């Protein structure tokens, strides 16, 4: 998509010039027209809400055309209900009378809308919605987006921190109103020849960090592959990659339920909606604030652009979406760059964010696993017994002239160990500041630790030989600090699942990679204990007509 291109219309600059000339020929204000057209395109991209669009142009349109039949905010919600294709509907809003000729309609639509509208009318043979949708999505040959977006949502998942509590799975199924057995997020314990669970565990001792886990875990959301085979094989473009942020999604309005995506995905992450979903369409919830048209339910959001969020309707394919309504800011700014599973994970094993941004959580976790693990452990994880004190806490607890031991004792919960790790983090830190466009929780936690260390050092000098030796930091070199951190967190290898298949997944794992013969084993938490169904077939079999029990091909 030509996000940075001068032209706003997907058909390019030439097209716009032509339009402008055309608009100049009409009796109406062509500047207003072009401006409206630009904003109309922004609406289709989700950068602007429809209500805002109408708000912005209501007066102008009244002035220019003496009438405005577009809905105002009050009518907005009702209109949303019926809305299908954004552009065509917005245009319909201008078009009160069905009987009008194309020319009249275009005039009345306002020259601006015409810019978009011609595209829709021009390709009427394909059906206006499709041509516009195709244009909106920047569909040419699908795989090669002309211009790469600088956002790609993804995850780094720390398998050694996962304790198999299944909180992410339950959070996902609540967030998305999933049926029993539809486990978009799936967590499993596994064993293979080289990685036995119980006996041969890498950690023989229980530490606060490893939580004494006896299990090799695998956390399996959709990998939102850059070269997604599921998308390539889809006969309808229902399975598509959003140009703006690389999410691989299913358009529930287009999918024909052929299930080829499920067949082609090497990871087995797709779940078909074999029958009517348990949660009715009207009951799909989200952040509801009826007075605020921007804080809308999933259901309404879905019809805003393409319908891609939450559980699938009957007869279509579903899989992990990485919470597009959050990424689009529809659940509030603070949820951008987070996902339901990430927020629910007690040890912070799931780090979600923009994998193309080096400051994001997944990038930090992937590139600096040792340091990031320590940061997450000291600040971000709810089930850790160790917490780094804040600068404020330190300032209020300490006074000039305290020696190291007294200072540590004076701050609740602080130990030599924690301080040593904090200091080590400070020593290896490059001081990268978090970006402000999304949730960079690791870097901002790092900043907190840095200022806490700085605060501490106002009272006690930590850069003396004595302090170094007390903190176990040897000669105080960066290497020593790194070593100290490694002792604490381990130094995990990273991998991606089935790298050789060429899908280019956007989920990276830290920890042990399951070998080709790895088999799932019973994990620390039973699925049914947290209200989940593991083997969906048990449920599906109930609906099979003329089922013969126990017989299988």
């Amino acid at each position, binding site marked *: 998509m030509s996000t940075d291109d001068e032209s706003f219309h997907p058909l390019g600059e030439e097209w716009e010039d032509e339009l402008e000339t055309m608009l100049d020929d009409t009796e109406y204000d062509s500047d207003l027209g072009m401006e409206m057209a630009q904003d109309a395109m922004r609406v289709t991209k989700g950068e602007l809400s429809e209500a805002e669009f109408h708000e912005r142009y209501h007066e102008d349109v009244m002035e220019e055309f003496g009438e405005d039949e577009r809905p105002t905010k009050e009518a907005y919600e009702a209109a949303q209900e019926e809305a299908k294709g954004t552009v065509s509907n917005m245009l319909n809003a201008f078009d009160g009378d069905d009987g009008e000729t194309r020319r009249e309609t275009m005039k009345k639509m306002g020259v601006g809308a015409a810019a978009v509208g011609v595209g829709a009318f021009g390709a009427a043979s394909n059906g206006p919605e499709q041509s516009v949708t195709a244009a909106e999505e920047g569909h040419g040959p699908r795989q090669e987006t002309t211009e790469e977006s600088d956002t790609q949502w993804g995850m780094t998942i720390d398998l050694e921190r996962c304790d198999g509590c299944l909180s992410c799975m339950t959070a996902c199924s609540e967030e998305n109103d999933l049926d029993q057995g539809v486990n978009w997020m799936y967590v499993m314990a596994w064993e293979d020849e080289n990685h036995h669970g119980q006996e041969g565990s890498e950690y023989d001792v229980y530490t606060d960090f490893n939580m004494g886990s006896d299990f090799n875990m695998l956390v399996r959301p959709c990998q939102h592959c850059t070269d997604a085979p599921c998308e390539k094989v889809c*006969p*309808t473009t229902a399975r598509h990659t959003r140009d703006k942020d690389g999410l691989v999604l299913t358009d529930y309005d287009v999918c*024909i339920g052929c*299930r080829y995506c499920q*067949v082609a995905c090497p990871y*087995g992450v797709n779940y078909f909606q074999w029958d009517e979903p348990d949660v009715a369409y009207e009951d799909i919830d989200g952040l509801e604030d009826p007075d605020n048209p921007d804080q809308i339910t999933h259901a309404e959001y879905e019809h805003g652009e393409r319908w891609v969020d939450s559980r699938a309707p009957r007869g279509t394919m579903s899989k992990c979406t990485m919470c597009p309504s959050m990424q689009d800011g529809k659940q509030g700014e603070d949820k951008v760059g987070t996902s339901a599973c990430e927020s629910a994970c007690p040890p912070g094993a799931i780090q979600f964010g923009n994998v193309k941004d080096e400051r994001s959580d997944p990038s930090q976790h992937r590139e600096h696993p040792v340091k990031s693990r320590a940061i997450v452990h000291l600040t971000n994880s709810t089930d850790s017994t160790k917490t780094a004190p804040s600068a404020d806490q330190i300032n209020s607890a300490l006074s000039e002239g305290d020696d190291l031991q007294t200072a540590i004792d004076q701050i609740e919960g602080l130990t030599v160990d924690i301080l040593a790790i904090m200091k080590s983090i400070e020593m290896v830190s490059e001081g990268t500041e978090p970006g402000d466009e999304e949730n960079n929780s690791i870097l901002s936690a790092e900043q907190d630790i840095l200022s806490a260390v700085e605060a501490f050092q106002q009272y006690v000098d930590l850069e003396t030989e004595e302090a170094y030796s007390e903190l176990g930091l040897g000669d105080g070199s960066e290497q020593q600090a790194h070593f100290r951190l490694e002792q604490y967190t381990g130094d995990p290898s990273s991998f991606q699942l089935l790298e050789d298949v060429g899908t280019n997944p956007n989920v990276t794992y830290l920890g042990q990679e399951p070998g080709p*013969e790895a088999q799932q084993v019973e994990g620390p938490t039973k699925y049914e204990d947290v209200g989940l169904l593991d083997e969906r077939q048990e449920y599906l079999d109930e609906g099979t007509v*003329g*089922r013969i029990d126990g017989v299988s091909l």
Partner: protein
Amino acid sequence: MSTKTPSEEDILRPINTLTKKYFILYGVAALGLVAFLVAWAYQLQQGLIVTGLGDWGSGGGSTWGLYIGAFIWWVGVAHGGIILSAAVRLLNMDRYMPVARLAEMTTIGGLSAAGFYILVHMGRPDRMVTSVIGHYHITVNNSPLVWDVTVITAYFVLSATYLGLTLRYDISRLRDDLPDMFEPVYKILTLGYTEAEDKVIDRMVWWLAAAVIIMAPLLLHGGVIPWLFALLPAMPGWTGAIQGPMFLSIALMSAISGIMIISYAFRRAYDWDHIITDDIFRGLLLWLGFFTLLFLWFQLQTIINGVFLGPTNKAVAIEAKIAHPIYQVAMTMIFGTLVYIFLQGIRPALFSKRRALIASVIVLTGTLTEKILFVVEGFLHPTFDIYANTPGTYFPSAIEWLSLVGTTGLVALLFLNLSKLVPVVELHAIEHLRGDHEHGEEATEPEVEA
């Protein structure tokens, strides 16, 4: 061998007679189709949950099953049919001319059944037009399923044209003996016909046949259809270049068997011993043996490639395949048939039409079983074989089984209807049989003719 002389009257007999047996058969076929239509309506109302299908992976099911297996089987029958008929025309295998049109009609029937299966298989068949055609220009670049739909449509058009062109000759000559009530149909079929066009049509048909044969390995059953599976990287049960030849051999086996069954039925019903001769059955049986041999050879290649030092994922999938009792049964049946065909080749006394019929039924059952199993196998042992619930379970539901009855009914109805409308044996074949009798001499080696 009969001494009767084939006549126009013979080939018009199906059109001008109406027997009780016909009605019974018609009723049974219609009942089968309607029963499945009702079942399908129920499936549409309830959702695909009425099938035995499920999600592979953590779900412990099979994503595709009998519907897709039967779909590729019918496409195979269809593609084999058109290849056969094209070969007859292209290579002047005159001996098989009497069954050439039956082969073309089998193609039309097979493609109809296959097309129907596509709809039945979908979660939202109502969106076929808007979703598939609306995005065709994009999806045709990537999706093997779109290639399939394209090719199937193209071959439907091609086969229908082919059939239509050859029908003009017959209808214009036999018009007086054809029932008046279908007059409009005949009018359309022979629109603008002049005898001068015969030569041109002959040429066209020859070129069409050439196109069919040339494209067979790539665009018919040796390419696009197996690519639906063979190109997917992470299902070792499916991947591999062998699937092209494998599918093509299965298609030809199924088509020959199908045509033998249909020919047998027509010969019996209309006393066509002198038209669809024993000789034709012998020849078809030998061809069947030839393709069966190829098929078993490809199977062997697949197996050896997997089990002998194969990569882990492939080895697991192939070992499971050969250990599967249904696979063993299907292969034994097919191998047994091959042995019979071989023996009757050496000792012609072992041949009988009934035995040829049984061989055909066995082969058709064997190939259908192989197809369904092949589809399901992919999901049983994927490369990412970590899930405790994989291999999952799958057994077709009553509705899925019924679809086989329904589509068979559909194809039978097509034949029953067409046989009342147009001659199912070409006039050319009759003319040829009359003018050239010594061709009836035993020539059991089809290769000789080819």
